[in-house]
């Protein structure tokens, strides 16, 4: 087990040629992604738009799952069933349309097939809109409650799914061929996600329904120290975990645990480093909110509510992730000319400062731009939804379309 890298993704082997110089390449790519994001938001989500799925949980659920499915496509199945040759020779626009179409279709199958028709029907009704309706719940809340449960599943998956390929390099299944490798890693990470859901989210449903479902789910075990019964406590730190995975993978170039030459030691170190970064982000963001708005108050609502503060740590983390991905995808992970440590430090400072600019900017422009409500702590809106949709569009552009038209894949020699 002396290999430097056990498993290399197709994304890492691409030969990419720049068609535009910086900063034009970055600006064009960013504007393109942002325009597509605005178009998708208007069509599917905007409360003033066409389909208006951001009710909010219903649309938010789709956004969450589009992200997970994109991670499955690129990181776990390595674009199987499409061959590397097809990926290399197909025009980026055509490839983008096909892979994005597949992403949409698989998301629909996961939600309507796996959750609504299977899990919700045969295990836990709260995972299915039609099942909750059949039990007598009003249509609106049947959809909102089930969407919340299904998207919480996705929140955990967004943290655990990429960890195996990113940190463990698919060890010990790195030697398998696709699709055997993809299905194995998928099954394993999905199993981990299911366990995590049962521990971190299922107790939320003990107290969501009236009367409390004490024989079906454990009492929220975090209540004593988190001062809330809401699962938002776990959503907060888990979303910090999602941001941590991708920051480690992108702007931090897996440093320092990439220096470990053997697996699974490298993966184990990576896993705990990601967890540590997640918890550090979590406590720091909670503390910053306390500094700005004062201590949260148990039982209070909105900006003073402990559960909203936890949720907002996740929102801050996702904003941080979006900024990190913009730097990575569109500005070539600048800077690259110094030592690794200095490069990482400068990028980290850029990302931290930009996160606060984005946070300020989001709340200043989102009511007009996205049709959301003014104010920080509206109980029925989640800045994570638009920010994750923007992240997804960046993934479509850079994973599915190779960053075209600013970049273009070229054949390997």
């Amino acid at each position: 087990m002396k290999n430097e890298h056990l498993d290399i993704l197709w994304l890492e082997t691409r030969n990419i040629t720049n068609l535009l110089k910086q900063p034009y390449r970055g600006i064009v790519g960013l504007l393109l992604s942002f325009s597509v994001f605005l178009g998708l938001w208007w069509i599917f989500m905007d409360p003033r738009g066409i389909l208006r799925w951001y009710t909010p949980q219903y649309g938010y659920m789709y956004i969450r799952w589009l992200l997970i499915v994109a991670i499955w496509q690129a990181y776990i199945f390595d674009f199987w069933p499409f061959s590397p040759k097809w990926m290399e020779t197909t025009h980026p626009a055509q490839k983008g349309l096909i892979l994005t179409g597949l992403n949409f279709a698989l998301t629909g199958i996961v939600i309507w097939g796996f959750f609504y028709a299977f899990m919700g029907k045969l295990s836990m009704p709260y995972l299915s809109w039609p099942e909750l309706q059949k039990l007598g719940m009003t249509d609106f809340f049947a959809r909102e409650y089930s969407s919340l449960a299904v998207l919480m599943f996705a929140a955990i998956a967004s943290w655990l799914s990429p960890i195996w390929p990113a940190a463990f390099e698919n060890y010990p299944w790195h030697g398998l061929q696709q699709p055997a490798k993809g299905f194995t890693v998928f099954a394993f990470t999905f199993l981990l996600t299911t366990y995590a859901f049962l521990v971190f989210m299922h107790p939320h449903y003990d107290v969501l329904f009236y009367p409390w479902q004490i024989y079906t789910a454990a009492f929220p075990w975090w209540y004593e120290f988190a001062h809330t019964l809401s699962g938002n406590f776990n959503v907060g730190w888990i979303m910090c975990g999602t941001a941590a995975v991708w920051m480690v993978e992108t702007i931090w170039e897996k440093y320092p645990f990439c220096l470990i030459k053997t697996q699974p030691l490298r993966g184990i170190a990576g896993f705990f480093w990601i967890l540590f970064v997640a918890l550090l982000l979590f406590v720091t963001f909670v503390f910053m909110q306390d500094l700005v708005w004062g201590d949260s108050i148990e039982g209070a609502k909105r900006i003073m509510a402990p559960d909203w503060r936890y949720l907002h740590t996740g929102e801050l983390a996702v904003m941080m992730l979006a900024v990190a991905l913009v730097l990575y995808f569109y500005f070539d992970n600048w800077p690259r000319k110094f030592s690794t440590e200095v490069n990482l430090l400068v990028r980290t400072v850029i990302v931290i400062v930009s996160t606060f600019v984005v946070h300020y900017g989001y709340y200043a422009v989102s009511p007009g731009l996205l049709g959301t409500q003014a104010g920080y702590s509206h109980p029925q809106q989640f800045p994570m939804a638009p920010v994750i949709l923007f992240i997804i569009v960046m993934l479509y552009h850079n994973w599915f379309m190779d960053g075209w038209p600013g970049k273009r894949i070229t054949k390997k020699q």
Partner: protein
Amino acid sequence: MGNDVTRRSFIKGMAVGTVAGYFASAGLSSTVFKDKMLVVNEPPKVDIGMVKSLKVKVISETSWFSNKVLLDDLKKAGGLLVNQYEIPWTSEGVKEGFQGNNAGGFSTLIDVELMDGSKKKILLDTGWNPVWMEKRYREEGIDKMLANNEIDCFVSSHEHFDHYWGIEALTKYNTKLPIYVPKGFYQDGFDLLHGKAFPKAKVKNDYPHIGKLTVLDSSKPNMIYPGVALLTFDVPIITRVFGEQAFVFNVKDKGIVLVTGCCHMGIITYMEYVKHHIAGGDKIYGVQGGLHISPFEDWDPQYDDLVLALHRYGIEKLGPNHCTGYVTAEKMLAAGLPLIKGTAKNGSKRDIYLGNGDELKFA
């Protein structure tokens, strides 16, 4: 540089980094450090004066008659963030509704006796459906009070359809009544007051208001009469509404009484504000009005946080209704809170809390 790093030096580096990081984060969030950075300068408390007695009469707390119909309207329109003036609310064919209309409304009459013996009547909110509201106003004699200038002012808690859109039922009898609204009202709200119709949402006002209109902001408690103040909270609310205000009364020999319309800011936040900003706020004697916890009989674990925390405030008279929700009321009773029962008449469905026509005295 990676090739020069040995396993030993890597582990050392990781250990140092982890320990330093741990102490940095633990230090940041530790109580000691936090207390040093979170120095709270308690503002001087505002003395709002005192009133002799206070009586609150629920005119209508039945804002809508069918949850299902209301929620279907919201779902069809695109959810909880859609502008309320853009939603085609169901106004016909509702079995449980009033004359087929799902719209009812929230309105409360407040009777307060000041320390000099003078009496003031304040109307809080005007409901939604003017036909329903007029019926309730007639049944409680509010129409005559308005026409005879016996009501001193109208306070709009917030711009929501079920609290404000029945304004025509008020202006029909008195177009000059002084009005207080919270900062955050949209131009649509002012236009409705001044006679504009919104056909899509099926709301109109054929009797434009021509009296004094005051917009109150959240910078300080706003004094209405000695012993009576309004607090404005800058809160975002569903269907694109922003801002809500609620009453604080200081009742002689009893303590502070809070009267709300819908309390979107949350009753705990409201009480905490009073505790820290109003003289006598340590003793909250009573709370009356909508507490906006489970208005659609929906639930969230966060609401349990609220019910469990209410005990700590020592409220002696708790008279919620309307958007508090029946589920919440049942949980409050189970938690031993001093909930005041109603009589379930005039369209109110259950007696678990104060209903239409019920009265609560605080002195």
